[in-house]
């Protein structure tokens, strides 16, 4: 909700979408591949179905506050597919805690 001063000035506060919501809106399936809009750089990436699945798992882990553990699991499972860790980190930047910091 907008602060009273902002509301008076007609300014609406914007809330960043959650990582899962971002994937819903900006990781779209097209002809068996996925196009993903990076929420930080606004670059678009072409992903395989497998890569999109890993991002979804990462987004779920971020929202359940277990992203660090998820990263350890990925390392144990053989490491991140090329460039995917960076994209997972950009999703993590969407997640805000009451303390105001993204984790990881």
């Amino acid at each position, binding site marked *: 909700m907008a602060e009273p001063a902002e509301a008076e000035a007609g300014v609406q506060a914007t809330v960043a979408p959650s990582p899962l919501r971002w994937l819903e*809106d*900006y990781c*779209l399936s*097209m*002809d*068996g*591949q*996925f*196009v993903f*809009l990076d929420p930080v*750089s*606004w*670059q*678009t990436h*072409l992903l395989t179905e497998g890569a999109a699945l890993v991002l979804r798992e990462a987004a779920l882990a971020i929202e359940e506050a277990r992203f660090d553990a998820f990263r350890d699991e990925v390392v144990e499972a053989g490491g991140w597919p090329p460039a995917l860790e960076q994209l997972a980190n950009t999703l993590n930047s969407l997640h805000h805690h009451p303390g105001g910091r993204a984790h990881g």
Partner: protein
Amino acid sequence: MIEATPYRVLDVGAAKLALHSPIECLHADLDRVYPHLPGTTDSGFADVRVSLLPGSPLRLRGRQVSLWSEGERPFEPYPIHSALPLFEWGSNYLLSQRLNAYLLLHAGVVARDDLALILPASPGSGKTTLTCALNLAGWRFLSDEFAVIDPDTGEVLPMVRPAPLKNRSIAVIGERDAAVLGPLYPGTRKGDVAHFVPDRDSTLARHRRARPRAVMFPRFEAGARLHCKPLDSATAVMRLGLNSFNYRALGPVGFHAAVELARRTKAWELHYGDLDEAIACIETLFASLP
């Protein structure tokens, strides 16, 4: 009291350009390459407002002309006889920086029955030549430089301006029936240049939007055999983004506009070495669309 400077206004469809210049030959050249636009002077809104001002007549290596906009001179001066190419390139550059209400693709656009064929391409790929040839083959000319996509409706807006043909393309297009070209500017920074004048009907329809039907990424290579390959829609999105002036600046708006464009159209990559073969291929593919 200082009188307001008169500006010549060019309403090219998706944008209005306002030009002030005391250079008479520039206005004569504009009359030749914009023969179907009514000449108006207007102090109202223009997307781009520029002045082309002559430099000192005493310069030893020939007189120059500079383009000014919003108190800045964004380009190096040109020889004064190349004022029209400077206006065309300069104002296109400024439009590419300012028209952020739309997704702007670097593309030629033509249409049949208000269904648009978009031809995105990097410089040197033959986009302008192909767009002009399609106009001469009966397609409506919407633009040779910008596909102006309305992100709310997905429609493409015309931006009907003369198309700068370079070097060999001047003769290739100039020799075709009904081709109208403006003055030749030899030895510019981009080589010899002459502007193709889009037909009158296209100019008169400059406020009539078209619905994108197909996207074709053309690439000319002398002597190449015709090769036309369908593209999947995800690849088309990526290539639309790469051929856009403001895709990243628009962020989510540009993303959704490109995705919708790719979903609503069929996309191909066209590699060609013969213009007439390419046109025949395009006609066949476009006619075969459901």
